């Protein structure tokens, strides 16, 4: 049985490695074939070089800091607003019946279309990008928190009540600890869309940030650099997501 399991795991890894090698080989063949316009599919070497150049330039880190800061502020604003809204809707049946449908319906609409309005409200600088990120992450956090509130075991709430906890004590000592999981899920989903919202806004109109670097590479038709930046973007956003997932599982 054990040998069997080891065999399966080896097979899985063989499959994975084979897939990656095949994909890279197909890429390299496509790059060399000249079927697509030159540079649309740059060779792996060119992308590797660009990756090293990007990682070696202080410019990249300065723009990364700008974007990280925007996303951070957006998460604080959207997160606090989302948590407060979620707790309110989750705790009060009347409010939930009155307003939660609005949240559920606005949640899956494309947020980037609000960007022109955000520019008028908050200007062309970081303000409008922060607003985009905050609007994006507000919805999943609020929805997930409201759903989490309703899943708390009633006995915990009764314990709090029987200790005559004040509303703020109830939130701090009963609700928040009991809702750790849905809140972390909400924050994770929220961070994902906040990253997308902020970066898309940067590609549309900005002069700083990672989104700006990507669209600048596109405008200059520096394809290896664009690929390198996109790879870094993906690694960073998937990495941050995985990190939060890891943290939520830690005791």
């Amino acid at each position, binding site marked *: 049985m054990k040998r069997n399991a080891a065999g399966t795991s080896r097979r899985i890894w063989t499959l994975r490695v084979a897939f990656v090698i095949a994909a890279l080989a197909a890429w390299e063949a496509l790059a060399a074939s000249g079927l697509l316009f030159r540079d649309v599919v740059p060779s792996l070497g060119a992308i590797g070089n660009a990756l090293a150049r990007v990682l070696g330039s202080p410019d990249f880190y300065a723009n990364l800091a700008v974007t990280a800061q925007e996303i951070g502020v957006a998460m604080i604003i959207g997160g606090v607003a989302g948590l407060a809204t979620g707790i309110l809707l989750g705790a009060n049946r009347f409010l939930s019946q009155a307003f939660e449908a609005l949240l559920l319906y606005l949640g899956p609409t494309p947020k980037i279309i609000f960007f022109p*309005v955000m520019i008028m409200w908050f200007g062309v600088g970081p303000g409008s990008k922060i607003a985009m990120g905050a609007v994006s992450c507000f919805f999943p956090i609020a929805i997930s928190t409201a759903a989490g509130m309703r899943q708390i075991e009633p006995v915990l709430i009764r314990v709090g009540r029987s200790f005559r906890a004040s509303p703020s004590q109830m939130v701090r000592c009963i609700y928040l600890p009991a809702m750790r999981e849905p809140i972390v899920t909400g924050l994770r989903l929220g961070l994902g869309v906040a990253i997308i919202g902020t970066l898309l806004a940067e590609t549309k109109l900005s002069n700083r940030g990672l989104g700006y670097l990507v669209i600048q590479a596109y405008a200059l038709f520096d394809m290896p650099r664009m690929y390198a930046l996109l790879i870094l973007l993906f690694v960073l956003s998937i990495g941050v997501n995985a990190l939060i997932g890891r943290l939520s599982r830690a005791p």
Partner: protein
Amino acid sequence: MTSATRMASRNRARAVGAASIVAVVALVEVLIGAGVINAFVVPRPTQILLAIPRIVVEEHVLHRFSQTAQEVLWASLLIAVVGIALGMLLFRFRPLRLAFETWVGALAAAPIVLMYPLFLVIFGRSTTTIVMIGFAAGLAPVILKTVEGLAGTRKVLIDVGRSFKLSSAQQFRKVLLPAALPAVFVGLRLGLIFAMINIVGVEFLINFGGLGQLINELAERYDLPGTYGAILFVILASILFFDLTERIERWLRPVE
């Protein structure tokens, strides 16, 4: 609480919800009139309402709507065909599933729309780019839910098939596929919503195509009431789409 009083209280709550939206809109109107909110930043709600017939006629909203709907339709077809096929493949060959299911899961969480400059380079500023981004954004949930649905077939059903000595093709067509359908449609609905969001978003970003481009154009013309009106229109359209897919999904769900 009886079901009648519960119903009444829910209706009351909904009425309060709707009334508060109207109240907020009215308040904004008053504040703009009083000069507290700058009319060059937020147009009066009445102006926005008046702008809606104008953008419907002058900006050919219906034509743009059908353009976006067609892009969503093409992306959906691709998502359904490729997603269900890949899901079946992963289910049929267990090592493939073990090796790649988590990767597909990671893909579902990846910010695919950020790659739109890449799609622009490959497919040009065209409908193809928009459809392909919609496709890429909505693919993963369909694959995952198809695998989940097929793998979740109740054992007793599979045994019934076996006892009738069905060939593996028959077993698939008559037992596994019908059993998996509800889950497949849950995935399809998620995929369609992702596709729709990304398609409208990319239309806006690359200034090409249907409703998304309309918002961009009106904003660039600094037609404020028009911009707000168009955004409202897109929100309504996506809510309708959302609601429609939900109804279809509920209709397809088996009776418990």
